[in-house]
């Protein structure tokens, strides 16, 4: 299962990832899934939507849903700062913006990412992770976007 997920998310050796911060931890998604990175703009709240869906924004004339990634991963919310960014990602046919605390850089992860299932004792939220990359001692937690934005009914 883990292998399959890795393949889907392009977790091969030497992959490029967009790294960003959530609280003090560094996370990453494959650069192939990232469309663009935007500054925080006005988010229109959508009543009755799930908690982690913050609302919608105008992305050059089209309407893009925005989720709070921290809330989705079960981390505590922190106030927005001037570093807060919206990372817009595509997966399958879904386009979603994810709120992150700061975008750090684009990294190349060499070598095999560590399997999360082995590294972390299974806890809630781990289905959202697909592996951990090691870049000179910096740990980049790779996200499983399909679970995060594809699988949102009733959860």
């Amino acid at each position, binding site marked *: 299962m883990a292998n399959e997920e890795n393949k889907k998310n392009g977790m091969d050796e030497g992959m490029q990832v967009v790294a960003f911060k959530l609280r003090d931890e560094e996370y990453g998604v494959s650069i192939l899934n990232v469309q663009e990175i935007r500054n925080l703009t*006005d988010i*229109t*709240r*959508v*009543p*009755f*939507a799930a908690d982690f*869906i913050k*609302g*919608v*924004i*105008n992305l050059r*004339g*089209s*309407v893009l*849903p925005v*989720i709070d990634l921290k809330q989705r991963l079960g981390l505590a919310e922190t106030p927005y700062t001037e570093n807060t960014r919206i990372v817009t990602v595509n997966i399958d*046919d*879904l*386009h*979603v913006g994810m709120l992150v605390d700061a975008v750090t850089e684009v990294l190349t992860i060499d070598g095999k990412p560590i399997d999360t299932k082995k590294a972390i004792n299974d806890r809630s939220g781990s289905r959202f992770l697909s592996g951990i990359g090691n870049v000179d001692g910096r740990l980049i937690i790779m996200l499983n976007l399909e679970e995060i*934005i594809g699988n*949102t*009914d009733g959860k």
Partner: protein
Amino acid sequence: MNLMGELVINKVRLEQIGQTHRLAELTETLEQMDRVTTDLQNIVMKVRMVPVSAVFNRFPRMVRDISKELNKEINLTVEGEETELDRTVIDEIGDPIMHLLRNSLDHGVEHPDEREAKGKPRTGEVGLIARHEGNNVVIMVTDDGAGINADIIRKKAVEKGMISQEEADKLDDADAVRLVFLPGFSTAEKITDISGRGVGMDVVRSKIEALSGHVDVETKIDEGSIFKIKLPLTLAIIQAMLVKVQEEMYAIPLGSIDSTINIQPTDIKTVRNKEVIVLRGEIIPIIRMEETLQVPHVKDSDEIFVVVVHAGEAKAGIVVDNLIGQQEIVIKTLGNLFAGLKMFSGATVLGDGRVALILDVATMMQQ
């Protein structure tokens, strides 16, 4: 069509700039441009509108063939063929309707002998009806057949592991019947060429929803079923009233607005704990948008504006803090992430770049 939408958004933006700067020449040019774009838009719309007969035409033949194949006696009635729909919708709507019709023929209408035993005429009646309903076009596929048994649906859904027994018990009959729209659902006892391959109703639903429509079913055992497809009349541009509730903006389609009034807080009376207003001798229940939509409260407003809306026969007054004005808006879908959110029929980008949600009045009134 998207280009037309962009043009309208930019026109509205220009108008707003014009209002802040108040240059006589600019205003004049803008008015001119407004007329031209409106004309252009009307022409584009007209060119794009096609009567539904374009798709309906092929169904009588198909129904005849299928009923022969199934040894059933069926009379198809087609109504409202002249109803017009956007070309893109027409192109996409054929398959879902065909599917619904096949379902009615195969599972709905019983065999002539069976019908006679039930005391019904041997010939089954199947209807294909299109008509306008506000800003929507409704297409209905009706039959006077066996209807859908909610208990069988519940049982099947549990058997297939789509829902648990507890969930099934909690559903009322109408909701249980709606389970047929879930992927992988087929109740036909035996699979036939015509329908019942388990790839049916969910495809119908996703196709209709892709057109920002909505499909629903009503059924009565031994009396028949009605499948109702509701589609937006125009895909893209409508007139809407923009309203403000606290700090949030919402758009209400002009098609469902009767009037707007400004009232005093004391004008709101209560009838059996429900708030109402009296307007020209009519008692109209009111909906406080701030409470219904859980809008964060920022400040108290001393004035009350009521937007009187209708859905079908029913009327309601929606209480808002301010009326911003009437505007052309371009409808954008909210996307899959908000599937199941019926309160809003979409969203629109305003002249200042912000996004406003478009209220689905009928759903709001049901709350």
